[in-house]
């Protein structure tokens, strides 16, 4: 009897989080931009700017190249769906999310990969110089970032003997407090991966359309209107997802335990706090760092990969 109630509540939670993330994600990117603006002594467009952008884009007519294939048109939805899903299975408020039974951390990485492959293919679909350039660079960045991310997650799941995010978070947050040196390395690696995967400085610069430097923007050059809107939304979801992974792994404290309803309000409050902190941190990072040449990127990410593996090794070495 009780179990059923739990299940129903859990499902409700799941839906709630789905809704929460999809609504909160643009806000986060808006917040990051705003912080950057402040750091650069600009008065930014305000944290709600992304929502306005999305509304505008949705209203416009979609303009599509003559030779665009169905693949091109369906990709935005796939990407959006994947990112939404990814953001939805990461425990940020409470750990009982029934859907994360269906997709563990490896699947999470898989989801990101799926979205990436599709957007790269779509970028090559029109057959413009920039499109394929962007696709190539995106894959180049990712083939080092993805294993690094996987290693980071592995370190955590080694510690918690599980590849399911709820279990990991549960272990990290609610058992006796332990300092994990391996996680320190993992955290460092993760930050780099986060920067790279979300097209941030120093790997990419979302702000510009400078041919020589752009990666993500080069891929979505041909998109417009609702498609572009979905992709933008998806990328803010992606940022949200990454940041919440970081939160879940490295400062999970305060996330509510299974069936602990009382803890929820606090959890939500903490979450917002963490998000704001993380966003501000990101802004700081982007402001203090400089964009690097595209061929420095592999070395940069190689470092991340190395750090992640080191973290894993240290876990084996010290058992912590």
């Amino acid at each position, binding site marked *: 009897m009780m179990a059923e109630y739990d299940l129903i509540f859990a499902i409700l939670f799941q839906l709630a989080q789905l809704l929460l993330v999809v609504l909160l994600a643009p806000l986060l990117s808006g917040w990051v931009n705003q912080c950057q603006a402040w750091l650069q002594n600009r008065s930014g467009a305000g944290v709600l700017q992304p929502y306005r952008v999305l509304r505008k884009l949705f209203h416009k007519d979609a303009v599509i190249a003559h030779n665009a294939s169905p693949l091109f048109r369906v990709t935005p939805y796939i990407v959006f769906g994947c990112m939404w899903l990814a953001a939805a299975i990461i425990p940020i408020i409470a750990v009982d999310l029934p859907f994360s039974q269906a997709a563990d951390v*490896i699947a999470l990485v898989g989801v990101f990969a799926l979205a990436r*492959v599709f957007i790269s293919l779509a970028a090559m679909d029109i057959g413009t110089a920039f499109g*394929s350039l962007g696709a*190539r660079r995106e894959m180049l960045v990712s083939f080092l970032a993805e294993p690094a991310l996987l290693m980071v997650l592995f370190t955590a799941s080694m510690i918690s003997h599980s590849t399911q995010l709820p279990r990991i978070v549960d272990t990290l947050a609610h058992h006796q407090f332990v300092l994990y040196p391996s996680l320190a390395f993992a955290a460092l690696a993760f930050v780099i991966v986060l920067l790279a995967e979300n097209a941030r400085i120093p790997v990419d610069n979302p702000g510009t359309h400078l041919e020589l430097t752009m990666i993500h923007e080069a891929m979505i050059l041909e998109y417009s209107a609702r498609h572009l809107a979905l992709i933008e939304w998806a990328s803010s979801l992606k940022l949200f997802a990454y940041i919440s992974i970081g939160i879940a792994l490295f400062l999970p404290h305060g996330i509510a335990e299974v069936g602990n309803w009382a803890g929820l309000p606090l959890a939500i409050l903490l979450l917002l706090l963490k998000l704001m902190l993380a966003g501000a941190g990101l802004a700081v990072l982007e402001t203090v760092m400089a964009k690097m040449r595209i061929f420095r990127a592999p070395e940069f990410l190689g470092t991340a990969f190395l750090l992640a593996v080191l973290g894993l090794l240290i876990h084996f070495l010290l058992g912590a």
Partner: protein
Amino acid sequence: MDDIVILPLDVIGWSVQFWIVLGAAGLLLQRVPRLINDVIFPLSALVSLSLAAAGLWALAVAPGVMVLPLGLPDLPFHLRLDPLSGIFLILLGGASFGVSLYSAGYFKSMAGGTLGLLCLQYHLFLVGMTLVLLADDAYMFMVAWEAMALASYFLVTTDHSIPDIRKAGYLYLLIAHVGAIAILLSFGVMQGGNGIAAYTFDAMRSAHLDPFWSSAAFLLALFGFGAKAGVLPMHVWLPEAHPAAPSPVSALMSGVMLKTAIYGILRVTFDLLDTQLWWWGVLALGLGLLTAVFGVMFAAVQGDMKRLLAYSSIENIGLLLVGIGLTIIFHVYGKDALAALALTATLYHSLNHAMFKSLLFIGTGSILHATGERNMGRLGGLIRRMPWAAALMLVGVLAISGLPPLNGFVSEWLLLQAFLLSPGLPNSYINMLVPVAAAVIALAAALAAYVMVKFYGVIFLGQPREHALEHAHDADIWERIGMGWLALACVVLGLAPVFVVGQLDHVSQMLLGAQLGNAAGNWVFLAPVDTERASYSPLYFLLAVLGVMLLASVLVRHLYHGRVRRSDPWDCGFPAQTARMQDTAEGFGQPIRRIFEPFFKIEREVPSPFDTHPRYHGQSDDRLWYILYLPVKHLTEKLSSLAGMLQHGRIHLYLTYTFVTLVVLLVFV
């Protein structure tokens, strides 16, 4: 009851005979190629299906045994059908079903005489592979093994007027033969007791070897089967031979024949040898990792689509070998549940690779027919010309990139789980090795995605790079059916992992005495060891993604509008774009080549800015060829020149030989 127990084997027996008949018929009917295409190949596909069914059936029942009145007088042909053979028979049947259907359409353009011959060789090839899986004594195994090699050799050299193809065939059969010699030696080491009857597998099973000799047997087997599978450093033939063959044959070779080598390694290591040693596992693991990274690295820089696929096959073989290595390690340290996990991952990945690699290879066949072009640098934009092929191959591409919810992801997931669950091995070195290995696997998987994006993007997407491509035609109906079947297999294998794992458990039970089972207990969730540790449900996953997508699109359409306007691509307002501005295959691979520069032997000629007709030529070669193979060649030549000095034509010296021989012998009496 017995007859029921034996029955699967009988079915297979009939299928094999039927295949032989079909092949012969093909040879006889070479006057009427239509019959071969529209009747024989479809029939043979049905036979494949019956084979797969028999294999599936064999998993459940007790092993069937049969002794044919053929073979050597004291060593007749022994046949045995156990779960291990069963799984690989399913693989063979499933893959060849699609490929045969495809062939019905593919070979339409071929001349009668060649077609008849090819039909015969094709079926002999299938028969050879089947018998390899069934053989239960060394002699029959060798006969089937070499028959398989010979048939495939003739298939590879089907259009032998091209010198490169002859070279490829030569290299292929030579290395295959050397490998076969090693296998024979390994059987010789494993022989139980004396007399020729010691060469039945039963005798070998009952024989007990000391560690040294069993290691020798294992190493020889690893070498021999590795030579067939394309494991480093015996891989050189593979990227030559697989592209050379007609596409359906390449599909069978890459998809199925390589797996027979995996089957051989498993058979020898876990069935014939009664003990394993931990360092075998480490060796296999290391070799596998090297092979995987090497393969994918070279795949990334290929310009020829079939070569690219061939290198990707090398990568997948590497992954399989890693799985085998893990299995050995776990098994040696008594962690049989984990061993079962690793073995399941290996077998699962074998099945998957058979399906999607066959799919991709026959797909390239259609492209080849449509455009007559194997060089990706001259393709492009085919998704608009050949939508069917494009759609079906997209499935294959996603599957081989290891993306959820398709089958490639499941096996990689299982493999990574095996790594994650590994700690606690008594040997600290292995404990150190495991995470590194996991990292390399992840890297290889990610690179595979890179390769596949290049493959699909350059061939199907973008603008056609040549005008000839405007006239490309889509795959015909038989071809679509064949590709459709394989794509379907990829999806099903991806969505129903629980069922598949359940079947694979029979093999784990037989080889390791342990089962993986499914902790989740229901058919939706796949939870290898314990639901708390890990679980995955592709079905829910798929539903969720689709649901979210539909939700999004419906909302967008509903709240706003679906208006679309067509125009020229914007491309940053860049004027005057031509198809030549897209990345070529080589351009797409360039970053990889740059990052892993030391591993390639690169020769390029880059035009200077002042060339009136600038042309670029670049080639990335395999260093191993120059390091390992050429010295052997030179040594042989040196020795043969020594031998040649004996024969210098002067009769006096010949007489002196006789004289000296005589005197020496007389002295040494």
